[in-house]
């Protein structure tokens, strides 16, 4: 597969002062996005979705941050590892599933990150966030923010040309009267309108990869469906490769070609959207299955039956179990595999072409 972005064994840790421990937000995650493809990342809060995306965009600033792995971006015929040489600045000490200490040369690491990300962040990788109003500059008009992006990242250097392009982009994200909206400040616009402006800004740099982090969360239901519709239309028009993060399975289902399910900082399942998220599919990770079952279906509602909840709580990634991360909440452990589930983390094994599952129930097919 012609991967545009390939993340391998990414590890991003943080230190919690309140808990006096290291949190392994992303702990050995691997995934890839092909050209023109939308990869949806599903998972609960704390599963590492957003941190994975922030790591790829070089936006993790808290310590210790990204401490290992590879993030390879192949665009314009150049392949570069966005984490190249960063391991020289970090040393991690572990014992019994706990991270004991992390030594990091912060200034050196920072300099290296900035050198690696120059010309990548904003240009090659653009991002839209959950809260559009917070991501826009409140002191400057939407138009001037767009013009700034366009002049910085594209060939359009002249003021007038940039303005025309900006208006064109406002039109493309279906903002009506774009010429009038050009001079609006973010506070004069609704949440949905700000999200459109954010999308225009991200796409106006003509990035190779768009990261959309919960683009519909926090918007009203009617507005959400409009934004999803817009993203679907833009996807068909621009074919920009997209990393879409959402906990709303219906959004992922609608927009993604492939899906990665994250749990406890790692990817537990990846595959085509239809294979992974179809309710009736038989072979998939017990977590994915339980997650889908906990959403009220037409059938559940009609019968007014109970929802199938996943018992227990979302894994805190301070203490990572020796075996499978989902073992404690899994309802499909059989006597045949119990020992392995408790004892060793299963590999992300390919169970069908393009469909990988991290579970001892499914042996790899070669």
């Amino acid at each position, binding site marked *: 597969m012609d991967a545009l972005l390939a993340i391998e064994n990414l590890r991003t840790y943080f230190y919690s002062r309140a808990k006096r421990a290291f949190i392994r937000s992303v702990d050995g995650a691997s995934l890839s996005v092909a050209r023109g493809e939308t990869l949806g990342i599903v998972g609960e809060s704390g599963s590492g979705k957003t941190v994975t995306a922030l790591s790829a965009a070089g936006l993790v600033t808290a310590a210790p941050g990204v401490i290992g792995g590879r993030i390879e971006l192949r665009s314009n015929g150049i392949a570069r590892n966005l984490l190249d040489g960063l391991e020289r600045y970090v040393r991690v000490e572990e014992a019994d599933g706990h991270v004991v200490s992390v030594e990091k040369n912060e200034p050196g690491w920072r300099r290296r990150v900035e050198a690696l990300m120059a010309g990548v962040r904003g240009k090659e990788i653009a991002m839209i966030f959950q809260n559009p109003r917070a991501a826009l500059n409140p002191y400057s008009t939407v138009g001037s923010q767009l013009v700034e992006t366009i002049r910085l990242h594209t060939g359009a250097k002249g003021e007038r040309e940039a303005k025309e392009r900006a208006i064109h982009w406002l039109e493309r994200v279906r903002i009506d009267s774009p010429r009038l909206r050009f001079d609006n400040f973010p506070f004069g616009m609704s949440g949905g309108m700000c999200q459109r402006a954010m999308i225009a800004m991200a796409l106006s740099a003509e990035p190779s990869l768009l990261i959309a982090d919960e683009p519909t969360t926090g918007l009203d239901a*009617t507005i959400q469906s409009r934004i999803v519709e817009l993203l679907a239309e833009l996807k068909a028009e621009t074919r920009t490769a997209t990393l879409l993060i959402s906990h709303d399975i219906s959004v992922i289902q*609608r927009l993604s070609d492939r899906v990665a399910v994250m749990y406890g900082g790692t990817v537990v399942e990846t595959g085509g959207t239809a294979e992974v998220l179809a309710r009736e599919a038989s072979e998939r990770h017990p977590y994915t299955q339980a997650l889908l079952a906990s959403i009220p279906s037409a059938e559940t509602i009609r019968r007014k039956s109970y929802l*199938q909840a996943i018992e227990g709580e979302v894994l805190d990634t301070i203490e990572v179990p020796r075996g499978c991360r989902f073992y404690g909440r899994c309802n499909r452990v059989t006597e045949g595999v119990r020992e392995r589930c408790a004892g060793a983390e299963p590999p992300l094994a390919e169970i069908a072409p393009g469909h990988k599952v991290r579970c001892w129930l499914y042996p790899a097919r070669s």
Partner: protein
Amino acid sequence: MSKTILEVTDLRKHYRQGRGLASMLTGEARVIPAVDGVSFYLRENETVGLVGESGCGKTTIGRTVLRLTDPTGGSIVFDGRDITALSRAELRPLRREMQMIFQDLDAGLNPAMRVRAILREALTVYERPSDAEIASRIRELLEQVNLKESKLANFPAELSGGEKRRVGIARVLAVRPRLIVADEPTSALDISIQAQVVNLLRDLQKHLGLSYLFISHDLPVVELVSEKVAVMYLGRIVEMGLAEDIAHRPRHPYTQILWSSLADKQSTEVSRRTRQETVERERRAWGVFDFEHPAGGCRFAPRCPLYEQKGRPAVCTDPASEPRLRDVGRGHVVACHFA
């Protein structure tokens, strides 16, 4: 048929917003009618769901019904007693019977108190139980909300989202309420935990005979837990009826848009709409709430596809004929001239 526990008639809550120095001098202020003439009732052991976009007045209704804010007009009858104008002192004994679960998981959980102390405090607000009684009640509450005893020694900050929600519910149950206003009880939680909490709330209703006013924007969950659903738009109920009727046979164009937006999001087909159609659709979908100058006549007309379809009939924008809720059968009421 079980008896009515809450009856709200023509409830109004108008907020006044000053306009700086000039309004201080002239006494002029803008009035925001957050709730503008809402009537409904709730039977014992029943759930009424309240849905609508943010800013439509859902939460204000919840707070006003419990007299957490004072209504501007209308009446609230709780268990046969008019509580609209009761004083604070008169309300106090009633407060224990009407409780609220807030959207914010941390609301009501004192960060400096351990779970045991939080529950103990809730148990001793209205009663003076002995230590032994407190201990047995705490055990009972833990069992009801399915929380481990080991959590009693934790501070709220040490709990996960789901556990905080359970403690919040236990705290509400401690005073043995009969009516609970649940304001977005699941929206701050993860999907897998949401299902646990929805199941828990339904279990508690079954075992304790609770009545819920369930405020949420999660339409499938509302449909699942509610017997009746009221749809609000700009401070008014535009449609109300049995949950299945509202979800599957909606009559009001706004209700139809609300439920179809759910289906839109799920459909996998990329739309082939022309740019012009999209812009047209957009303009309606974006309709900005303007409480100050609500359109004359039907409030929804500026966004209404039916209004366009019918060739903009004058009756929809006639200030003298705002549509009233009328019965279309099975207790299903709709406020639309054409539905």
